[in-house]
């Protein structure tokens, strides 16, 4: 039989549109307009999951985002799996496939449940910390199984087929929540002509009006909602976002809205449609109309399926035409909840009794219930419920709230539904995201937002304005205020007439007393999602966890998707009572974004796959691809790593490339090196201050290597700078340092030396750089250029302008390989043609393209450092044995000079850059390996340095490394040892860091 709990009429559902869906493999039917939760209840599904810690059966409690139990896995295929969807927020669609996220072998017959029953008392808060503490190394093992047993959904194993995106907006007024207050605010702001965004997390606008008994202007509340939405739709400056949760209130009125555009349409979005969208909104004014969450009462076995929030019962009856039971017992401490009894009664169902904790309730709704003959038990409450898989009875007893005691044995009432209401908590989450402390109000028994610097207005329930007429007025007034503060002239408006009701105060009851004390009473759950009981909170305070943040972390109260929506105030009240203090003295925990969980898809938007990060290609990239290059990522750049021929692996390719450069000529694409064009009359002086060495005497046409330090005297970048004209220089930087160096130059020019006339322009992308390196580079270049390459006319460390391959070029005679080298700079969009010409002419010289790996080997043979590989931000030029590059007599105290003369920087025995030759030339020292002088010393050993660069073979046929060693420069010829993880020890000899052509004869010919 299907939908046995569906009422024969009523609800905002389309009974002509039957939707089939499955839950835990079983087929069910629901109607268009249902949420998954409503459809499950209509079909009498009691148990939707097993609890986190005790594995108790759990049913649906709520009708909105505060639902703690119905956290399901959705998805008909592997790729469309979505974990941890709240069934109360998932619209039903045809073919929906849902499963519980825990329970084994099934939620109905769960093995863990027995453990939970037996072990319940053995699992106090902190159980995991206390039990699985030793040995520490086992925690990883324990955790894996604990997580599996807890079961909170799983990620899909296949790629998400849907697309997600984001949109940025500016608006005058952003209104959060489209209940009565939010709609009224939207009317006021919209009519003023302001740019308004109205966002609401539910499937349709209206909030509490969609299940309200009230009439507005004598008509059903939903009619007013429809009229308002129609009016708002007609306003061109108003953007309406249903199914859109404002999940974060960030600095300076920047809010993020998670809109679910297609989650209600099917397992995946229709082709061509975006599934979810993140709106990033900067709002001049924000109106928070987030309303309230009803608080459940805390009583014995309050987690047995069939125990629900009172308001949720009304929502299911009136909005979905579903009665989640037949015989209702209502337990309340306030007037408003009486509407549930009335709705239930009006639906033709049995109200067994209303237990009201107050002595003599006389409000209008109470009297209405009395007039209908509903049994009302005063000074009473449901103190426990009974039932294994569903409620079968509730025990109602007289209680003394002040003494926190039960004053009569009470009676067991047969029922299959217990609805409770402990009052209403303003939804202050968004108002508190930026740290604003909520303020307790005794008159409403709830926290309201405190003062905050944000330009925001809180209206309606969040403000403690609970009555419908008051909420409408508060909302309208807030909308007027927000719009006028944003610079718009508000228009007068009439609000609908609402029947005024006489309502009495709510009584402060949170945990219902039981005739046994909390520790011995049946479990009284405060946070069902995390299985936190009243007894656990009392225990936590007894064990000394007195701060609310500590109680939260020790018990897990308010963790998970719950984030303190249902359990927060009850938990605080219990902790406060346990310690004999008041709730405001206890205070609340922090509320942080996000309000409800956000999918990774919505966070990533389009920034996934090849759009994850920008990729930079050099002008010659296509040529590298054509010539079989393997690429490596250097920052965002794709650089050729090596160019394998045939079946060559990286080692064979690099060995061949190295040999070709040493024997004849190789070609490297060096375009990625940072290039900064520096101009101005004070350019030279500026270079003097920013580099460690002197630039005063660098002639036009010459180039010089320079080191850059920070004020602490540590090397942070290097490169060659050429003098193009007396007031014009071209600086090169490391590939990864280009942006950093430009900003470094700018900060000094702008903040320290604004009197220096000097200007910087990044020209990295404007020039392509082809490096020809090797003994035959002069011959090869000579065939394609009109520049005089004679060694005296064009000496080492100089540059010339001329035609290369018929294109104007700047040629720099500098070398990073130790060979005769020319770096040919060509305007980037002509570079490919020049490269093709050089490659053609180069065939006769066995011109060999090489990549970064060969570049690294060749430079290391020469002892040339790579900043960031051989340095780590703690090395002075002297540590690198580069004292020759330090201008010790420059008049201006340049950046780094004072720093490198600090006491610690000039002591002996600092780690210094040296070469290492493994004693066994076939052994390779791993980069990063630690070094010791005595491998036989006990652990922990005295570490004296580490390997910075290491290569298995050089053109000399043995392995070698660069390393930093304490006092290494005075230890030439001594041995160091590198103990390896496998127990072996590699022995090496300390040598000079220049392994090849130490006199530089080859580059200077």
């Amino acid at each position, binding site marked *: 039989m299907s939908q046995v709990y569906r009422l024969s009429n009523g609800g905002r559902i389309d009974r002509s549109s039957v939707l089939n869906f499955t839950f835990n493999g079983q087929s069910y039917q629901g109607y268009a307009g249902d949420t998954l939760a409503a459809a499950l209840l209509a079909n009498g599904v009691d148990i939707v999951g097993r609890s986190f810690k005790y594995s108790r059966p759990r049913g649906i409690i709520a009708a909105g985002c505060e639902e703690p139990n119905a956290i399901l896995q959705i998805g008909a295929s592997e790729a469309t799996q979505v974990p941890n969807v709240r069934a109360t927020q998932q619209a039903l669609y045809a073919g929906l496939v849902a499963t519980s996220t825990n329970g084994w072998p099934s939620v109905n017959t769960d093995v863990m449940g027995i453990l939970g029953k037996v072990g319940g008392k053995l699992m106090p808060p902190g159980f995991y910390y206390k039990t699985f503490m030793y040995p520490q190394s086992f925690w990883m093992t324990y955790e894996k199984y604990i997580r599996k047993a807890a079961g909170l959904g799983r990620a899909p194993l296949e790629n998400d087929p849907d697309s997600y995106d984001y949109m940025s907006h500016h608006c005058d007024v952003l209104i959060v929540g489209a209940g009565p207050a939010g709609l009224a605010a939207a009317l006021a702001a919209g009519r003023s002509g302001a740019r308004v965004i109205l966002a609401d997390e539910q499937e349709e606008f209206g909030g509490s009006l969609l299940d309200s008994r009230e009439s507005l202007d004598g008509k059903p509340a939903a009619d007013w909602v429809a009229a308002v939405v129609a009016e708002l739709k007609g306003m061109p400056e108003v953007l309406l976002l249903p199914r859109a949760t404002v999940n974060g209130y960030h*600095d300076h009125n920047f809010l993020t809205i998670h809109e679910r555009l297609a989650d209600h349409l099917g397992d995946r979005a229709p082709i061509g449609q975006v599934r979810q969208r993140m709106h990033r909104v900067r709002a*001049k004014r924000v109106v928070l109309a987030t309303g309230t969450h009803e608080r459940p009462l805390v009583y014995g076995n309050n987690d047995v399926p069939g125990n629900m929030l009172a308001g949720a019962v009304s929502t299911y009856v009136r909005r979905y035409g579903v009665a989640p039971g037949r015989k209702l017992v209502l337990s309340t401490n306030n007037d408003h909840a009486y509407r549930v009894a009335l709705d239930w009664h009006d639906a033709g169902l049995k109200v067994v009794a209303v237990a009201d904790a107050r002595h003599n309730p006389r409000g209008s709704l109470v009297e209405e219930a009395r007039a209908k003959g509903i049994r009302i038990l005063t000074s009473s409450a449901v103190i426990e419920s009974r039932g294994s898989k569903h409620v079968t009875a509730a025990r109602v007893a007289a209680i003394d709230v002040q003494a926190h005691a039960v004053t009569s044995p009470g009676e067991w009432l047969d029922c299959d539904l217990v609805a409770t209401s402990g009052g209403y908590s303003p939804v202050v989450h968004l108002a508190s995201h*930026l*740290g604003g402390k909520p303020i307790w109000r005794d008159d409403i028994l709830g926290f309201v937002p405190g003062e905050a610097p944000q330009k925001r207005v809180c209206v309606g329930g969040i403000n403690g304005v609970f009555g419908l007429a008051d909420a409408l007025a508060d909302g309208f007034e807030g909308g007027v205020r927000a719009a006028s503060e944003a610079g718009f002239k508000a228009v007068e408006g009439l609000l609908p007439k609402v029947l005024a009701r006489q309502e009495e105060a709510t009584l402060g009851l949170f945990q219902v007393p039981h005739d046994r004390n909390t520790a011995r009473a049946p479990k009284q759950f405060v946070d069902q999602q995390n299985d936190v009981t009243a007894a656990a909170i009392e225990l936590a305070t007894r064990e000394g966890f007195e701060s609310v943040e500590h109680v939260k972390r020790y018990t897990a109260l308010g963790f998970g998707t719950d984030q303190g929506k249902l359990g927060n105030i009850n938990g605080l009240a219990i902790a406060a009572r346990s310690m004999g203090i008041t709730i405001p003295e206890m205070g609340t925990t922090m509320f942080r974004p996000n309000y409800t969980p956000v999918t990774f898809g919505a966070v990533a938007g389009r920034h996934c796959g090849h759009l994850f990060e920008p990729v930079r290609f050099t002008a010659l990239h296509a040529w590298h691809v054509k010539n079989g290059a393997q690429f490596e990522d250097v920052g965002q750049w794709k650089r050729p790593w090596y160019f394998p021929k045939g079946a060559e692996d990286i080692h064979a390719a690099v060995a061949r490339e190295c040999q070709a450069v040493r024997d004849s000529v190789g070609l490297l694409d060096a375009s990625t090196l940072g290039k900064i064009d520096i101009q101005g009359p004070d350019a030279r002086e500026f270079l003097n201050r920013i580099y460690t060495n002197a630039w005063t005497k660098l002639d036009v046409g010459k180039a010089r290597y320079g080191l850059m330090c920070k004020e602490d005297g540590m090397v942070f970048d290097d490169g060659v700078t050429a003098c193009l004209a007396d007031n014009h220089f071209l600086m090169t930087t490391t590939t990864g340092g280009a942006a950093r160096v430009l900003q470094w130059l700018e*900060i000094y020019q702008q*903040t320290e030396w604004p009197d220096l006339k000097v200007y910087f322009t990044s020209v990295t992308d404007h020039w392509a750089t082809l490096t020809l390196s090797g003994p035959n580079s002069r011959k090869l270049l000579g065939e394609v250029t009109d520049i005089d390459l004679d060694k005296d006319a064009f000496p080492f460390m100089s540059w010339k302008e001329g035609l290369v391959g018929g294109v104007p070029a700047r040629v720099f005679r500098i070398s990073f390989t130790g060979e005769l080298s020319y770096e040919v700079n060509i305007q980037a969009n002509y570079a490919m043609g020049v490269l093709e010409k050089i490659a053609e002419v180069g065939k006769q010289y066995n011109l060999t393209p090489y990549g970064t790996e060969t570049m690294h080997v060749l430079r290391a043979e020469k002892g040339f450092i790579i900043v960031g590989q051989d340095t780590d931000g703690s090395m002075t030029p002297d540590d690198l044995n580069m004292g020759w590059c330090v201008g010790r007599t420059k008049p201006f*105290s340049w950046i780094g000079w004072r*720093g490198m003369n*600090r006491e610690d920087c000039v002591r002996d025995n600092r780690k210094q850059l040296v070469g290492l030759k493994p004693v066994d030339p076939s052994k390779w020292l791993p980069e990063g390996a630690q070094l010791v002088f005595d491998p036989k010393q006990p652990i922990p050993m005295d570490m004296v340095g580490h390997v910075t660069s290491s290569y298995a073979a050089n053109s000399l046929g043995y392995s070698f490394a660069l390393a930093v060693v304490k006092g290494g420069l005075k230890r030439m010829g001594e041995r160091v040892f590198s103990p390896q993880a496998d127990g072996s020890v590699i022995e090496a000899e300390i040598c000079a860091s220049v392994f090849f052509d130490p006199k530089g004869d080859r580059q200077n010919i």
Partner: protein
Amino acid sequence: MLHIFCPHCGELRSEEEFHAAGQAHIPRPLEPNACSDEEWGDYMFFRDNPRGLHHELWIHAAGCRQYFNATRDTVTYEILETYPIGAKPQVTGKGASPQLAVSGQGEKV
């Protein structure tokens, strides 16, 4: 995400265009070589970490590439003023009127 008024561009722009560059108004000593190690260490490493008003150096990195200063409340994250290098802050303590400085930034959103 902060909303920052660039005094050079004359516009409120989103934080993602900017980089913070630490505490403002820390001039490099004019004669570094006359500084003791301790004085130099203070200049290099020691910074204030106030609860409340803080003067900070920012760069409009993805905009005009100009550095400027901002007075920010480290508790509320309000930016009370932004001003060019070389200028003095108008908001320096609780006595000052932040409203004045804020109104200078317009209400453009």
